[in-house]
């Protein structure tokens, strides 16, 4: 259950274009319905290598490995998976100060029509804050947001999470 599919995919295409323009070459992902819509656009890119993984902690470690050898990578996961990932964020991302860019589907926020996601929505931003992860919701001008986000994580050697909803993909 995911709510209605967004009409058009302009928002998703803007996100993909922004990642390409930032020089991202690798995207590690675990799907949910919204991410599935985004990844359909992502997989059309000739510049992004999509790595399908089986757990969100793994996606974060893969992106960290890419960053450690000088590549730009992004992690695309649901907030449920983010909530599973506290250990790797603390013991790899924070401990080794590895830049890490997270694109997180924000299930259970006020825009999500699916009732059972609501508990995750209630704790997502508080958890991000508690874990020391700077975060923002996708807004108009997402390309600039993503560009600035990559510059910021590399300057600070810290993680950043950009939270998106289904309507951000339309």
């Amino acid at each position: 259950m995911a709510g209605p599919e967004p009409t058009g995919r302009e928002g998703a295409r803007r996100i993909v274009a922004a990642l390409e323009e930032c020089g991202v070459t690798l995207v590690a992902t675990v799907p949910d319905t919204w991410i599935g819509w985004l990844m359909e656009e992502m997989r059309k890119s000739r510049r992004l290598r999509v790595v399908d993984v089986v757990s969100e902690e793994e996606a974060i470690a893969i992106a960290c490995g890419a960053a450690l050898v000088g590549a730009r990578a992004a992690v695309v996961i649901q907030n449920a998976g983010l909530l599973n990932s506290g250990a790797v964020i603390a013991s790899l991302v924070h401990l080794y100060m590895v830049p890490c860019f997270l694109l997180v589907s924000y299930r259970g926020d006020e825009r999500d029509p699916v009732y059972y996601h609501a508990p995750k929505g209630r704790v997502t931003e508080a958890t991000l804050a508690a874990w020391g992860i700077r975060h923002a919701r996708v807004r108009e001008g997402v390309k600039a947001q993503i560009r600035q986000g990559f510059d910021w994580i590399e300057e600070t050697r810290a993680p950043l999470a950009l939270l998106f909803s289904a309507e951000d993909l339309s």
Partner: protein
Amino acid sequence: MTTARRAWLEALVGALDPGRDLVVAGLGANARYLPHLDVRAPHFALCDSMGAAIPLGLGMALARPDRRVVVLEGDGSLLMNLGTLATVGAARPDNLVAAVFENARYESSGGQALPEVRVDFVAIARAVAFPVAERLAEARELPAALARGWASGGPALLALPTAFDPAEPIPPYSQRPAEIRLNFARALGR
């Protein structure tokens, strides 16, 4: 039959191409030994983040196809993230070898036994499309097995039955994470 960890490590280090290979060590004894060995290839050691070594190495391997990545992982740590073998099998990097040290113990935390069931990592790796998955018996077999891994056109897993000796004087962690990261970056010329 088991072999001492140090013997595995020395054979592995001796088989590396410093200009081409990268080494990632999972947390624990391998990471603690690494600064005490003559490792001339760039190397990155985890002192925590159990289960992250293989995906970390996968990220490096995919981002740098011009390099070859050897990951040193323990059996307990791999069990924590066993699904990563499926991810590696699907991604099919031809420049990643996972060396899995099998001693059925959580050595770093006091030598507690793993859950009492024999997990056949070689069979699992074969089942998820690793073209090379072998269990070795002796350290002298390692260079040739590594070469078979690099030549296989896909990922490889080498299971290394490792002796557990609670009295083994494993050195303590001697490098801090920031130092490890910086040394790794410098060795890569970054």
